[in-house]
């Protein structure tokens, strides 16, 4: 072994080995409760723009790919796990050992994993060369490449071992290996077809094989008979339906023609009553999702370069009342920056220190701060927004405008066309204010580094804070969770005290599915294959 590499860290090894034990036990435990083989799940899905997981960051592509392609590790799935439980369990890998400095990962692959028995793969065994090829391809082509840290090299000492060398320790590395865009792909397919864009390239070693792809209609995934988890999946087929119209999706679901009404099973909040009436046996579940909403401000120029103005905006909002009345108790008061459902990282309000006072509802103090900042008569501001997110989002923005009006701030809402919004306001190109939901990230780093690090495209508030930048880099380097947590706590304290964004409350997600599907649990992840391999149908 090269001398610059550190010895393998024992703690990481033990943790992942324990994870392996959990992974092994999940299906067996589930089977003991009576899983049944067979049947077809009809699932409303989304048609991907392409099947190349590295060629696009489209979540539609990740969803479809995850049925066929597998990752080295995966998140726990099943009814007993929380939607944002990202405990890692082995998938194509059995374990990973991390060097003490966190710069080298030694990954042991699961032996005996076979690719589909079709040309050009012919059912050959998955090896470390496949992992090397896939990681290098991801680094070269994926828009998510930065989420793997700086990979210096990938070694394959033998056909079941992979060593990944990072230029610097990168805490989210292991987590991100479990994201569907990091699935392991076979090189022969690219050699034969030129890329992975077409459905013909969907050859994998996952729980399902792509049996049929009908553009504009559906993709049919069939149980993979050579899947390395012999007992999984329980169902024979999943029909991934590309029905686009929302009212049609919901009608098919009501009529039992679709078992799951959307890719994440969501149904509109306004339909709860009618669903209880038309489908009384169907579960209706509120669950935690991660789409935080924030008011981004141009902190690089007046008036938002003055922290008193930003604090005044935060003080104007009655978050408790917002959740209790507007969201009927089914939402989060969430004040960011870490989403409330990420409980292991989220700092309780009482621990925010000085910053906690800006989270209270105190219009009098808000007006006082505005006056001190030179705005005794309030101000008029433009706030950009894309109304296409849906009527409930428009209502939330109107509620925010209502609260700001109480402190003399008149918000003029500028509705933007999607193209303009997504390449403009969404990336910080607006004049004064912009409000909307964020992208969904499954690793806490996504909500911190992207939003606060100087110069990041998603840093919509144009935050440029040296102290924060240092902490943001540091949290990426700490591979020990306790140390990283301390830094992330400090980031939350600083971000809250400086009010770089005003986070507004948001509703819980509402989902329903056909009760004949067992062991189904909502999940904040695009790894649909892992979620559906664990479910079975009632007899």
């Amino acid at each position, binding site marked *: 072994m090269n001398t610059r590499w550190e010895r393998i860290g024992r703690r990481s090894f033990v943790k992942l080995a324990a994870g392996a034990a959990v992974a092994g036990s999940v299906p067996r435990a589930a089977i003991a409760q009576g899983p049944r083989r067979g049947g077809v799940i009809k699932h409303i899905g989304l048609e991907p*723009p392409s099947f190349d997981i590295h060629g696009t960051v489209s979540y539609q592509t990740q969803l479809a790919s995850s049925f066929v392609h597998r990752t080295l590790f995966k998140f726990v799935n099943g009814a007993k796990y929380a939607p944002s439980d990202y405990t890692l369990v082995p998938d194509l890998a059995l374990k990973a050992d991390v060097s003490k400095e966190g710069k080298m990962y030694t990954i042991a692959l699961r032996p005996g994993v076979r690719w589909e028995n079709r040309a050009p793969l012919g059912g050959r065994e998955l090896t470390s060369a496949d992992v090397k090829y896939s990681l290098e391809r991801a680094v070269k082509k994926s828009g998510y490449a930065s989420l793997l840290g700086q990979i210096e090299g990938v070694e394959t000492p033998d056909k079941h071992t992979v060593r990944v060398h990072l230029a610097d320790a990168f805490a989210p590395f292991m987590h991100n290996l479990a994201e569907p865009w990091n699935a392991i792909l076979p090189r022969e397919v690219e050699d034969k077809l030129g890329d992975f864009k077409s459905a013909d390239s969907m050859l994998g070693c996952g729980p399902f094989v792509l049996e049929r792809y*009908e*553009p*504009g*209609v559906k993709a049919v995934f069939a149980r993979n008979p050579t899947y390395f988890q012999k007992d999984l999946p329980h169902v024979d087929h999943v*029909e991934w339906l590309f029905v686009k119209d929302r009212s049609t999706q919901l009608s098919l679901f*009501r009529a039992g*023609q679709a078992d799951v009404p959307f890719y994440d099973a969501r149904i509109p909040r306004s339909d709860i009553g009618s669903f209880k009436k038309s489908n009384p046996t169907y579960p209706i579940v509120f669950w935690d999702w991660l789409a935080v909403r924030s008011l981004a401000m141009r902190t690089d120029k007046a008036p938002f370069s003055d922290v008193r103005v930003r604090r005044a905006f935060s003080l104007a909002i009655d978050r408790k009342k917002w959740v209790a009345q507007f969201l009927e108790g089914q939402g989060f008061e969430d004040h960011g920056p870490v989403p409330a459902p990420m409980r292991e990282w989220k700092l309780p309000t009482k621990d925010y220190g000085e910053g906690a006072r800006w989270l209270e509802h105190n219009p009098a103090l808000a007006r006082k701060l505005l006056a001190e900042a030179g705005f005794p008569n309030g101000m008029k501001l433009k706030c950009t927004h894309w109304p296409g997110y849906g009527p409930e989002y428009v209502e939330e923005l109107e509620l925010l405008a209502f609260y700001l009006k109480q402190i003399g701030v008149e918000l003029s809402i500028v509705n933007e066309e999607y*193209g303009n919004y997504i390449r403009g306001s969404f990336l910080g190109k607006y004049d004064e204010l912009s409000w909307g939901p964020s992208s969904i990230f499954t690793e806490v780093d996504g909500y911190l580094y992207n939003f606060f690090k100087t110069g990041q495209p998603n840093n919509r508030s144009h935050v440029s804070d040296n102290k924060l930048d240092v902490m943001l880099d540091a949290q990426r380097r700490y591979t020990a969770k306790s140390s990283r947590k301390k830094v992330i706590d400090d980031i939350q304290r600083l971000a809250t005290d400086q009010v770089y964004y005003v986070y507004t409350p948001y509703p819980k997600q509402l989902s329903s599915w056909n009760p004949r599907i067992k062991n189904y649990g909502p999940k904040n992840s695009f790894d649909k294959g892992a979620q559906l391999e664990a479910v079975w149908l009632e007899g």
Partner: protein
Amino acid sequence: MTLYVLKRLILVVPTLILVTLFVFGIVRAIPGDVVDMMLEQFQYGKDAQELRARLGLDRPIVEQYLAWAGGLLRGELGQSLWTNRPAAQDIAARFPVTITLSLLSIAISLLVALPVGILAALRQDSLGDYTARSFAIGALSVPNFWLATLIVVLPAFYFNWAPSIGSFTGFRESPGRYLQQFILPAICLGITQAGVILRMTRGMMLEVLRQDYVRTAWAKGLSGQAVVLRHALRNAMIPIVTVIGGQMPFYFGGSIVMEYIFGLPGLGSFVLEAISRRDYPVIQAVNLFVALLVIFSNLAVDLSYGALDPRVRQED
């Protein structure tokens, strides 16, 4: 007649050139550039300049147009910027769905509008006539997407039943099941377009039924069927056929919404997807193709005048 057809065919050329200019220009007027979308939304590449160059979008607009038009002359409709698939391949796969839906919708419009329009004219100012006229106004007023949504949503809500959507049977697999999938969308589209044809049929029949030659036909003791169908309707048909020809774009346009709601894999849902992704070559190809269809279907309508009215043939 031959000269007439030749003149019309020659006129198609400048029309098509105008269509290509319009289609090429209008897709680029949609806010949100395809490169921005690929980069910022889908991370399709790493550098805007490189991506723009790769897609050929860095060249002057005139050059891009000429390259596209040159391709058209060689019979190439272009390739999708997202999938690299030739647009012609997707159009060929999806066109049968759209044309089936459009033809069935036209058939339903005619099946409803012609008999009802004729009967309303024969029984002018009767209860039946008022009912038919009210139906026509209703059909004109009701948007087809609303009717389609009701047909999908209400039975699901009240009877836990929905039309079979989410699977599609090809014609070769089962012709019966293939046609069955189009019945509801064709009814929605056909009924709403029937209003125009019904009103025109009634109006023209009323006018023709008052003509001397119809009175003569009655006086000669011809049967009612012969008078109405052979003498009156045939002469009333030219304006009606003109209206049907003029409605072709509405049938094609309406099929976009119907395909979306009923989950049919036709050109409509395909172009909608392409628009949302700013897939210029695909949008251009589909629009040009539909424009050609409309031009030639109108030509066919014009040619049918000769079959309906011998005087048109004689003029030639």
